[in-house]
């Protein structure tokens, strides 16, 4: 490796350290690192733009627009309250049911978005029940990370993997959704056992929750109908996009455009405010950084090292990938990690063949997404849930979360390993 490679690697590692410890805003440092890469000719201007995965960018933007508009109708709040009432105001049942709703929402929405929707109404329900919302929020953050793993659009790592490995929505549904179903059941068992004893409330308190009139939380029934129709078509489109040979990004951007048209508003800036531009530019910066590292052959070198360690044994590589991804993702942001691993697995695929490398993609997705549950800082959803709790006067410390998180992650990774071994080898 020459000087320029060492320089690039130095910058890359520095940027990742800064992102992991949140020393500076992660979007700013990713963009800065990317621009330094271009300025130092580590990656050419054209190649830098080429390395941005526009499928990921468009899918993220369009889903943010669709969710933003749907959110304004009160739909998600309606579902959450309806769920709490269906659980008859019984706290442990509410906890399980809301975790289920969270996992389901999260399979189709971004995890952070799901938590931003579910957590406030959950805190409200817990406070009205007169118990701490902390067990609810911890469970929901974990449920969102688990549910998000189930589909192509559930979690950014999956979006990146799907686009890079040309795996369609259906492939994710067939390969990841079954094991996520099993993991979710195990997770429900764990939270039931852990939190059951804290869940004692009076009849009067239950009655307060049963008094909620969820039908009044729907703000704009006309818009809601339009949202449901568009969401229905988008999900149908996702299921068929492989067959139609259209990228998921195109399906969702089509849905977003149609929904924007249906809102009938001339000014659309209001809806574009729901786009998290910080996240979008974080991805752009990251893609360029990883593009630069790939260009220099560093990733290829690492892939060869990994294969040398596992001696080309795919079974061992897959297991190693699940556990390494799980542990690393519990500590650092899984998005930059996956962004780096993608070219590595592509490289392995080019030497061992597409077919043989297929399980590796699922191993990466399972490890990286589920590992987020390992610690409080493992996933953005955890941090957001803790943030919302603390602003409302309820503290979730690193240890509060992590003592449950480690257990759930261990069980998830063991189940994932068994699944990958049984299904693919």
């Amino acid at each position, binding site marked *: 490796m020459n000087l320029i490679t060492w320089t690039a690697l130095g910058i890359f590692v520095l940027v990742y350290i800064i992102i992991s410890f949140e020393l500076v805003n992660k979007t700013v440092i990713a963009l800065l690192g990317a621009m330094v890469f271009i300025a130092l000719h580590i990656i050419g201007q054209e190649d830098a733009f080429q390395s941005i995965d526009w499928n990921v960018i468009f899918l993220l933007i369009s889903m943010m627009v669709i969710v933003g508009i749907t959110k304004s109708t009160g739909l998600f709040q309606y579902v959450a309250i309806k769920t709490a009432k269906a659980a008859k105001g019984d706290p442990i049942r509410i906890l399980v049911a809301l975790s289920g709703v969270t996992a389901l929402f999260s399979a189709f929405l971004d995890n952070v978005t799901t938590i931003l929707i579910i957590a*406030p109404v959950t805190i409200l329900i817990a406070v009205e029940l007169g118990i701490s919302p902390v067990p609810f929020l911890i469970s929901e953050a974990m449920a969102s990370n688990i549910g998000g793993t189930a589909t192509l659009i559930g979690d950014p790592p999956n979006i990146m993997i799907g686009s890079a490995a040309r795996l369609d929505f259906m492939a994710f549904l067939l390969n990841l959704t079954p094991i996520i179903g099993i993991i979710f059941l195990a997770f429900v068992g764990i939270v039931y056992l852990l939190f059951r004893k804290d869940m004692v409330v009076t009849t009067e308190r239950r009655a307060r929750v049963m008094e909620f009139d969820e039908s009044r939380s729907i703000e704009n029934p006309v818009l809601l109908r339009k949202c449901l129709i568009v969401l229905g078509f988008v999900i149908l489109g996702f299921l068929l996009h492989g067959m139609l040979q259209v990228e998921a990004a195109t399906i969702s951007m089509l849905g977003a455009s149609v929904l924007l048209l249906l809102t009938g508003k001339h000014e659309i800036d209001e809806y574009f405010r729901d786009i998290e531009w910080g996240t979008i530019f974080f991805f752009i910066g990251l893609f360029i950084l990883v593009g630069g590292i790939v260009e220099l052959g560093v990733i290829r070198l690492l892939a060869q090292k990994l294969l040398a360690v596992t001696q080309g044994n795919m079974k061992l590589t897959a297991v190693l990938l699940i556990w390494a991804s799980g542990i690393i993702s519990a500590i650092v942001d899984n998005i930059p990690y996956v962004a780096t691993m993608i070219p590595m697995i592509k490289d392995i695929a080019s030497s061992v063949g597409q077919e043989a490398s297929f399980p590796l993609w699922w191993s990466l997705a399972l490890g990286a997404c589920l590992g987020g549950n390992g610690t409080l800082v493992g996933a953005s959803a955890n941090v957001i849930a803790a943030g919302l709790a603390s602003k409302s006067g309820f503290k979730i410390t690193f240890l509060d979360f992590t003592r449950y998180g480690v257990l759930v992650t261990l069980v998830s990774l063991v189940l994932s390993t068994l699944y990958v071994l049984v299904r693919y080898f």
Partner: protein
Amino acid sequence: MKLASLLSEETICFGKSYSNMEHAIRETLSRLHKSHRIPMPLAEVEKAVLERQALGGTTFPTGIAVPHARLQNFSDLLIGVCVPQTPVESEGQQVRMVVLMLTSKTETTLYLNALGSFLKVSQDSSLFDALCKSGSASNFLNLLKQAQVEVRKEITVQTIMATSFPSLSRSDTVKRAADLFYQHSTSYLPVLEEGELIGELTVLDLFRIGLPDYVFKLGNLKFLKTLEPFEELLRKEEVLRVEEVMKKPTLFLEEDSSIIEAVFKFVSSNRRHLPVLKGKRVVGILSYMHILHKVLRA
């Protein structure tokens, strides 16, 4: 500019008796109309003044009344003064001096400042008393000149702010704050420590105690009839201290801040009250209603 320079002897009238305020206004007005060129028939001017008079708010507890009107196609400030032999009753006050002002539809600064100067004169009881007893127009003007009563060129917030206002200290309870809001029909209270502004509390801040952060992340609260934290607020208002819930002061005006600066701050910050500071001390509170009452509808 001297206040006396805005007056002339022929429009100052002494020693007559009036049956009521309207009578005093008509007399003063006809004197003004005779001595100055007003491009409107007397009856119309009278109508304008009496209509404004009917809205109330022109009589002050110091014993001065300032009936006035803004006239179409008129670009001057005319002031007529009348000191009745015996005080005239108006809006429940005994009026010792009537100062009638006619101004244009648009002019505000000079008019308001002249008004402010007359109010200031009326607050200085020895000067006011001397003026009322001066007996003639020329004595009246001489006294005013000697007292060097000035009319400021610009209006500033100190002309229209409230100089007496309720306030809190950091150790007061939230209950006391709620009581003060209620008793003074205000929605803003400064928190003072030795006269210096250390915090602020509004009625909305009080409500905010009962609405935790998560509530604002919910799209709406239509599905709720009660909210536990809001009920709790009522239970703990005697325990909570003002310092736990007050906000750090961020926006303020200074005594010589212009009206437009105040208006800009009200609109851009969406606030209803601003503290007026002199150094670090609070010398007044300006409400947006002061702007409405004393500038737009003065």
